């Protein structure tokens, strides 16, 4: 665990000097800020629900894989992975460290968005309960997407491929519930449950449902487990 934090700290420092991390942050803030202003102007409601309960969050599917694409792909391309995996560190600690760095950076990216509830507080009377649960939802959604992105990055030594794979996997996961319309019975329910998009709206309503929390934690655990396996087997060939 100590090793994972060492790796996370190094990786986080690398984010701060990476132009891509800043571009990603800017892109996310611009898109969310735009939606926030338009929605606020149209609805005149002191609530984050229209923003974070809806389609604006799709921006995360496209920007977060750009945050994770470098994590393992670049190490594998440049060969720096060789000294990392021959240090007395477990493969799981490497993956966890990388992931934690992306999660920490994501949390920092979210700090400027706190400006939205502050605006609401200044000009209206927002209900703070749903705002807090909304943030929990966003953090969990981002956590899942970063997990998937880390997995994508472990699969290749090309950052662009990792980004495309990450976006593709995120979209697939997001869109699974739309398949539910084509089938009926329990399978439809299963498809509904498996979809990333099914596990975000309730948070914006102020509801913390453990099923949603468990879902996100499972996506994260499964992604990191698979990424660890891939890191192992990529060397075994």
């Amino acid at each position, binding site marked *: 665990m100590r090793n994972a934090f060492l790796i996370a700290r190094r990786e986080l420092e690398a984010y701060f000097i990476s132009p891509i991390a800043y571009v990603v942050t800017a892109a996310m803030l611009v898109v969310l800020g735009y939606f926030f202003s338009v929605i606020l102007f149209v609805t005149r409601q002191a609530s984050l629900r229209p923003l974070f309960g809806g389609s604006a969050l799709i921006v995360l599917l496209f920007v977060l894989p750009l945050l994770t694409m470098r994590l393992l792909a670049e190490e594998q391309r440049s060969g720096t992975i060789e000294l990392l995996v021959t240090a*007395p560190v477990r493969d799981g600690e490497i993956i966890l460290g990388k992931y934690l760095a992306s999660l920490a950076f994501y949390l920092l990216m979210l700090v400027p968005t706190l400006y939205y509830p502050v605006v609401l507080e200044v000009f209206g009377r927002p209900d703070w309960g749903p705002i807090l649960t909304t943030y929990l939802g966003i953090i969990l959604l981002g956590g899942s997407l970063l997990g998937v992105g880390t997995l994508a990055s472990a699969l290749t030594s090309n950052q662009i491929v990792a980004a495309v794979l990450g976006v593709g996997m995120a979209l697939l996961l997001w869109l699974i519930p739309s398949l539910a319309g084509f089938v009926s019975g329990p399978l439809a329910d299963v498809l509904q449950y498996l979809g990333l998009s099914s596990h975000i709206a309730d948070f914006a309503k102020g509801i913390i449902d453990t099923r949603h929390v468990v879902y996100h934690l499972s996506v994260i655990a499964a992604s990191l487990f698979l990424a660890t396996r891939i890191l192992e087997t990529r060397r075994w060939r």
Partner: protein
Amino acid sequence: MITVRGLTKYYGSLPAIQDVSFDVAAGEVLGFLGPNAAGKTTTMRILTGYMPPSAGKAVVAGYDVVEHSLEARRHIGYLPESVALYPEMSVRAYLEFMAALRGVGPARRRKQRVDEVMARCQVAHMADRPIGKLSRGYRQRVGLAQALVHDPEVLILDEPTVGLDPAQIIEVRDLIRELGRDHTIILSTHILSEVEHVCQRVMIIHEGRIVAEDTRDRLRARLKGGELLYVEVAGAPSEEITAGLLSLPHVQDVRPLGDNAYQVTCTLGSDIRAGLAQFVVQKGWQLLELRRERISLEEIFLQLTSDEPRPDQAPAGR
């Protein structure tokens, strides 16, 4: 300190190394010599725990590199062939990171250790430079410094002088020789003079197999079967001189090279120069030149790795 038995590695269906076995005693400096694609990097990557072998086993500092990989890795310092380091990190930050990963602590001890290895590898004046801005020679030294930072018993250095200019090569060789006093070292190279300069023992690998392993000096002698002399004698027909030289004690073979020159092979450890000179003078011939010939590892290497079968492994029926 290092025991390797029957190590074999397949990439797909292609064998990169086959049945590689050797031992390295504590404090020994072993040169791992072979042309490109011989399997040096593959062997070293297995020893360092980068990848597992397809078959066979390797034990480093008492720990099996597959079963007790983490423990084995703690005792190894590794300089990979590519020396890929994080370009955005400063030399100091990188070394502190590697030291922490290898369990050097607490922080004060780690700082001190990093300062020590930076001084030893002569990169102290570059401590705050980003690694990406360093020359190849300095990056190589930073690579060496990270291999040393946790004071490992075993150093595995994959082509440590490749890509360096002659002055840097000498510096790195001196450093390795000095490290050899208190470390067990395996050093791979495709340059013969490197092993001549640095290693006590040599192992030659070709197409994934060990073709020779001995001390540097014995290997040199064993291959040609003895000491070599270059002699120029005039004053008699070639056949008579050849026969005369052959009659001397310790002489195993005499080969006329033309122009009064002969190559004389003598038993290992003998020095018949004085006797030979006396003999030629007694015969009334003229001794024009007499010198010892050193067989270079280059010749040994060509002899061992040329594709013609060696006598001891010629296929039956040839």
